[in-house]
């Protein structure tokens, strides 16, 4: 592991973390789980004693032939990605990085995925196993370091996106993927309706597309796969070549689009594939279509109810990425219906009876 140690400090502080959770459980002290603290903007603010994860870092095991890596939650995303890249592999879900301190634990806890998501899968799809600190401060193992495992409930995948509200993730095993042999990104001038039509048509064909976005009269596509197919598709689609850093800027919100004007909030609309443009009073330039149109970034002053009603009507939901900027008046996540909420509460009560894990981060009540 010396080679990998170059990328990430190798330190196991799980025992200390367990101890801290035990004390918090006994004293009923709420904990705010912190990795690189780059994703605190996402979700509701948490009041609590910080449980610092960043020191719990390092790659526990990595066997490129098995396509599996196990990593401590506090490992920096950049370090993990560098270690994988050395073996010509990568995380399949292209996690967004909102700062150099960004950790893999935070990436999984928030469950966010980059432009590749519709084609490759989400964060949870690549999680094979986890170690979790439970409310009683016990370190337990779920899932494992094998590709297929249906023994017991799939707790590990459920941790992705639970934002630390059900337990503390300490170690995560992922399925990793080889970096494709060939890649080419391109841009085509196309109006919105033609672009959406084209994306539906391309989507039905076995083409090596791994990202598709539209903004301001241009369709952006990324092709990845074997050399032959990428070249053939490139020739077929034409267009101008696009710098691949475009996708990183979209993934990490460093693209100029993400600069907000006064009074605007940033929203993420998650909609079924092939959903027509929503009938909302938003300028076309204030919408960025990603995921072939299934994920839409929207800058608007419209209220939450209006946006959520429009999304709900087509089977989607809306997340506010700037709830703090609006004085905390907006719920970041779409409220759950009564039955689903009941089972969320039950689950939270079972796994975190005293509400010590990131209380209120997802919803006020749990």
């Amino acid at each position: 592991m010396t080679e990998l140690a170059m990328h990430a400090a190798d330190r196991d502080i799980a025992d200390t973390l367990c101890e801290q959770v035990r004390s918090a459980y006994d004293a009923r002290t709420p904990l705010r789980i912190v990795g690189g603290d780059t994703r605190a903007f996402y979700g509701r603010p948490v009041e609590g004693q910080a449980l610092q994860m960043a020191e719990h870092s390092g790659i526990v095991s990595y066997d490129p032939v098995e396509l599996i890596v196990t990593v401590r939650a506090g490992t920096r995303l950049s370090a993990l990605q560098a270690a994988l890249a050395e073996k010509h592999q990568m995380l399949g879900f292209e996690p967004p990085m909102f700062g150099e301190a960004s950790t893999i634990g935070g990436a999984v806890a928030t469950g966010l995925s980059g432009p590749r998501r519709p084609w490759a899968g989400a964060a949870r799809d690549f999680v094979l196993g986890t170690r979790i600190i439970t409310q009683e401060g016990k370190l337990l193992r779920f899932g494992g370091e094998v590709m297929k495992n249906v023994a017991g409930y799939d707790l590990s995948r459920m941790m992705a996106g639970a934002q630390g509200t059900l337990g503390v993730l300490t170690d995560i095993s992922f399925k990793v993927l080889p970096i494709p042999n060939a890649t080419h990104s391109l841009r085509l001038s196309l109006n919105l309706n033609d672009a959406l039509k084209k994306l539906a048509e391309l989507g039905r064909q076995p083409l090596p597309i791994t990202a598709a976005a539209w903004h301001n009269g241009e369709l952006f596509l990324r092709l990845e796969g074997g050399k032959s197919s990428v070249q053939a598709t490139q020739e077929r689609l034409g267009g101008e070549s696009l710098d691949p850093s475009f996708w990183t800027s979209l993934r990490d919100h460093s693209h100029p689009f993400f600069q907000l004007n006064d009074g605007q909030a940033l929203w993420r609309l998650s909609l079924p594939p092939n959903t027509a443009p929503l009938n909302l009073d938003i300028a076309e330039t204030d919408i960025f279509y990603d995921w072939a149109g299934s994920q839409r970034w929207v800058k608007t002053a419209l209220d939450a109810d209006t946006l959520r009603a429009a999304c709900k009507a087509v089977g989607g939901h809306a997340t506010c990425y700037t709830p703090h900027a609006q004085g905390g008046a907006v719920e970041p996540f779409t409220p759950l219906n009564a039955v689903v909420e009941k089972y969320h509460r039950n689950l939270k009560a079972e796994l975190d009876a005293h509400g010590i894990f990131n209380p209120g981060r997802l919803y006020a009540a749990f």
Partner: protein
Amino acid sequence: MNILFDERLDGELVQRDKSEVLNDLQQAVPDMTLLHREEDLRPFECDGLAAYRVLPMLVALPETLEQVKGLLKRCYALGVPVVTRGAGTGLSGGALPLEQGVLLVMSRFSKILSVDPDARMARVQPGVRNLAISEAAAPYGLYYAPDPSSQIACSIGGNVAENAGGVHCLKYGLTVHNVMRVDVLTIEGEHMTLGAESFDAPGFDLLALMNGSEGMLGVVTEITVKLLPKPETAKVLMASFDDVEKAGRAVGDIIAAGIIPGGLEMMDKLAIKAAEDFVKAGYPLDAEAILLCELDGVEADVDDDCDTVRRVLEKAGATNIQQARDEAERAKFWAGRKNAFPAVGRMSPDYYCMDGTIPRRELPRVLKGIAALSEESGLAVANVFHAGDGNMHPLILFDANKEGQLALAEEVGGKILELCVAAGGSITGEHGVGREKINQMCSQFQPDEISVFHALKAAFDPKRLLNPGKNIPTLARCAEFGAMHVHNNELPHPDLPRF
């Protein structure tokens, strides 16, 4: 160890008189088919794990959601357990009935509700057969990727319950990766939608939790699956090896070359012979092992990959490499693999199929262990693997009519699973725990982990009415099973019948 529900170890059940439950349900849901005569119940006494049979108290065959809801509400009120069943092809006894329970058969929910080619999704009822989805999507050039070997018969509801796999998992994922949304009825008869037609949904990922939960958390009533464009082409290479370990290493070499094959399967000599005798797949009978490597995608890439894989296989010591010349030969190569279980079934009066997974690097060591167990017990073992994802299906051959052979087969099976766990693997890759592997769960998980599973269950089904006795053992059962281990595997109460 008796596989039948044992209240002492599996938890107490409410005792209800059959006629009382029958009357209650007939009144509450008058238009629902409810079987109660022994001759009508008999066909439902087992699933694909036919060695275990229990006659259910009643069998319900609802046709509408309202009926399912009505049934669940009454069972909840009466405290009567409900075991949900799809096509009954499961191999782990997940749909094994309970004497004091109602068997809820979802097979009449067999409609494909919609296929949307532009959104690449299909909405289906749980009783729809796996293969029927791909057939419905075929006119649009699309298909549903997970393809368990039983795909002509197994239902999608059961696939969700078991998180079913197949021969294309490594590249295309399991059921959990291909289901967008499920509609569920809780044990209290409440309706919930988990997941969404969008790529995510707010809240916890209960959709991930529902996949593979073996009917313990809710009853799935509708499923939205993702459809994929059919690969332009698929080509299969068959490589022969004079040594199983060499074949095992070749699998790793292919992955190391940066290739994710659509399917990567391995069979040992006994499995090859069985399959060849049965379907004449064109397998080499003199080989110790064969690898089937399917490469799919865009024609030009597949050709490049075939060349790479061929070179890797040669270097790995393959004695012969053959590429299927056409679609017919490709189908023939796969027919041998997909029919391996029934093929082995023809060689032996009975066989017992295991489903362990291991890190691939452990394959040679685990194979050696299996060979030793086979020799020691005198029972032949044929090995079939989803080699690409380390999922082994050792088939233990035995004759149930011979005194003690079933128990011996189960004992060998249990030891094979423990080998898998010791190698860092799992007792089940895709068949599920069900009733069959309930004791082996105690080797894979510690009591504290099992307690967390119980906590999850309690969040959805506090009265433990959905499929009790399956999937997650009680701590009492683990204590008993653990104690047995201490005693050199000598079972206590040797006088008790073990079916």
